[in-house]
């Protein structure tokens, strides 16, 4: 079973001054994502696995695969804790 992170579809977001800004009017929260988190957010379409997202991050920022895997896993956990991401389980065989 594979897990593919997905942006919380309820939230509205824009790219403002080079950063991703996400609003959650229900709890009056405005979230701002740094460059790496923003790329993870954009890639989290519910179709790509964590490993695939990490591979994109590794290529974009020229870091090792292991380092990217670690950072992406941590970022996804943080974004999920803020309810910005949800999981799509079993999206890929």
């Amino acid at each position, binding site marked *: 079973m594979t897990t593919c992170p997905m942006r919380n579809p309820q939230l509205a977001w824009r790219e*403002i001054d080079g*950063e991703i*800004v996400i609003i959650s*009017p*229900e709890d009056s929260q405005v979230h701002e994502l740094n460059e790496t988190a923003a790329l993870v957010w954009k890639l989290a379409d519910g179709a790509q696995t964590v490993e695939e997202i990490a591979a994109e991050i590794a290529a974009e920022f020229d870091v090792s695969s292991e380092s990217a895997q670690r950072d992406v896993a941590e970022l996804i956990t943080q974004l999920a804790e803020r309810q910005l991401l949800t999981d799509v389980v079993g999206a890929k065989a």
Partner: protein
Amino acid sequence: MASRLTWPQTGRPLRISIGHVPLSLFIPQEELQKRALKRYQEFAAESNVSLPVFLRAKNSVRRGRGEFSYVLDDASLELGASIAEFHGVRHEYALDSLLRILLTAVLLPRHGFLLHAASVVRDGRAYIFAGRSGAGKSTVASLSPAGSVLTDEISLLRHSDGRWQAFGTPFWGEFRAAGMNRHFPIAGIYFLTQDRHDRFEPLSTKQILRALLPCVLFFSSDRLANEALLCTLLDLIERVPAYRLHFRRSSDFWRVIAA
């Protein structure tokens, strides 16, 4: 989406208009009708295209029947495509609360929203002083010339006639006034911070969004509503200047703003 709400036979409605949103309130309870008439008399307006709002005694809302529904304590509202129903309204305060919630939903597709803010008119333009409870909205209103305050608590901002305008509302705080049914182009938005000196500082788009969102009255978790709100707020931010206003509890802040 067609409304499945029914259209009851009732008497003559109380017709009002808030922020250029005409409403016909069908209130069966005579005492509540009298109190509503007194509360909203400043906003009385005739219109042939108003949204009918039917008050029903029994709270029988089944969520999801209409386009938007909301439950507030013992009362609730349901908004359909061309009709609204309030259920379980027993006093004017519940009516007032449901009207605010209704307006947030009706204004959203019309590029408008309600904001926790005082609006004060000076030289024909509206100055918006935003902040949550205790920020100083009523203080600002009390320090402004008599007759210049559109509201001391809930401001209605709407893009209308090609520009952003502030409308008076019947939703007041400590002033407990009847409200002023007028509208003016917005000069600027000032987020209130009480301080020892009067000064203001410009804010970036992100800073304005962070300051603005907690002050917006919003009751939907719907994705399209969230998207519409973000569009509306970004349009406002692009067209209207916004600042952080540090102010003492004195009218001197007007000198800073006017400078």
